[in-house]
């Protein structure tokens, strides 16, 4: 089984900030098949399209998946309104996640806002070898700091307003570090800077992208993104070719 639909019971729910929620579900075989950086499509009653949500943590022993997501509209608001004991209809695991490579190398993880959760499962594997740079609007919107620290990662935080940690862009923190691999997820302007710095240093960089999506499995070709391979440009698809891409294959639109 690569992916399947399953009814999953919510075992735990937390509210992390004003609009960011944290759900853990019993996902059995879906959790067993999942890897870091993949995503799931969550069904919302009355909506035609499922909501693509990245997998934040996988516990294969307990058979659980953890999702940390932000309320963006009616669908995610409904998901935020669910309770432990409720059942979610989940299609997972989907897409290609992060290729971790050697977890003893010095890796740096860069996340912006709600782009931080998809990094956790991958960063955990690197323990003390990973520096995790996270950027948020302000102190109130910081998420998952303790989760990364618990696995031994060194966490640096940047805030837009200086209310916590470094006052400025998270990408500024990248400049003073030594690393041999970069993993990133966040807003496109942040990703562009991360890719540029990695390219200048000749370090491989994997980034996770998002796009408006329908089927989630590569059939409808809705979630197009411009890619380049062997010198030819083409539209690939976030759900099947990604959501994680080698930065060198991504052509930024506009």
């Amino acid at each position: 089984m690569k992916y399947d639909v399953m009814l999953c019971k919510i075992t735990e729910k937390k509210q992390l900030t004003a609009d960011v929620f944290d759900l853990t579900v019993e996902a059995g075989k879906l959790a067993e098949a999942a890897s870091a950086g993949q995503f799931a499509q969550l069904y919302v009653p009355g909506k035609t399209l499922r909501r693509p949500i990245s997998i934040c943590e996988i516990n294969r022993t307990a058979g659980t998946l953890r999702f940390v997501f932000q309320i963006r509209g009616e669908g995610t608001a409904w998901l935020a309104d669910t309770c432990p004991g409720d059942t979610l209809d989940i299609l997972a695991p989907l897409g290609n996640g992060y290729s971790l490579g050697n977890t003893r190398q010095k890796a740096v993880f860069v996340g912006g806002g709600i782009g931080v959760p998809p990094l956790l499962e991958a960063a955990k594997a690197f323990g003390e070898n990973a520096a995790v740079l996270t950027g948020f609007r302000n102190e109130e919107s910081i998420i998952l700091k303790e989760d990364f620290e618990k696995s031994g990662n060194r966490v640096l935080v940047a805030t837009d307003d200086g209310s916590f940690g470094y006052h400025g862009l998270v990408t500024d923190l990248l400049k003073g570090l030594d690393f041999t691999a970069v993993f990133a997820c966040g807003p496109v302007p942040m990703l562009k800077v991360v890719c540029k710095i990695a390219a200048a240093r000749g370090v491989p960089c994997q980034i996770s992208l998002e796009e408006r999506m329908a089927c989630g499995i590569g059939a409808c070709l809705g979630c197009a993104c411009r890619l380049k391979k062997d010198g030819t440009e083409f539209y690939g698809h976030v759900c099947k070719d990604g959501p994680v891409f080698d930065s060198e294959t991504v052509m930024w639109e506009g």
Partner: protein
Amino acid sequence: MADLRVNIAGVAFQNPIVAASGTFGFGREYSEFYPLGTLGGISCKGITLTARPGNPPPRIAETPGGMLNAVGLQNPGVDHFIEYDLPWLKQQGTVIIANIAGNTPEDYCRMAEKLSETEVDMIELNISCPNVKQGGVQFGTSCAGVESIIAAVRKYCKKPLMVKLSPNVVDIGEIAAAAESAGADAISMINTLTGMRIDIHTRRPVIRNNTGGLSGPALLPVAVRMVSQVYQRVKIPIIGMGGISKWQDAVEMLLAGASALQIGTVLFTDPYAPVKILDGLNEYLDRNHIAKAAELTGKMIPWES
């Protein structure tokens, strides 16, 4: 168990549930969920004479009761389909329908000619894609256009020829009659209705193509009405589609005049929907002591006006 078999233009379908073009790719992704032989058929992703890159993103927007798409016929071209997808599809034990779209009548003719030499069971002429400047719909919105393209393709097409109609016309009955008289063996309908959504913060259309094709449950009553209208106008069979998302919708569409059904957008809500619709239809037939699914076609009892 009722007899679910239907015959469309000489092609035997083991049941009337067909995956709709554009929502099912070339089948591989959905074969992860269930054997494709469960379905009556697969209408493959629309193909063109040469590969097409498709439209820039965003290509998708959700709408009340449905969605808009403007994928723009991204596909690897007819030769790639014949070489890489068709051999695998033909092993799945279901009817394979090739959906073709062209820039010119010559494109359609050349594709029909190539596909006539393959194991494809049926050809669906896409003259209704709303999302590309050239690629079909320019032939599909007038009777003269429909007649000329079908007459041209007919000369090269040795397979049963089905024509997929656009709902973006004044009188779909007239278009269907033109398709029949020009030599179409069957009609599939309806393609998407052209729509638009605007981001109120950026004032930009959500879809990069500005407009997109509306599909999903919101479309059902329009599709049922149009199928009913066409059923009264032509003798050739109709494969009905447009917003079918549960077995009750399927029964409705058959009663309106469809002989088989295509299931599309609901796949994105629930990949198992075609199987559930088939089970529900079967139970409905048994419960009502109807021996054959085909007996439902066109059995709506209209109010006298």
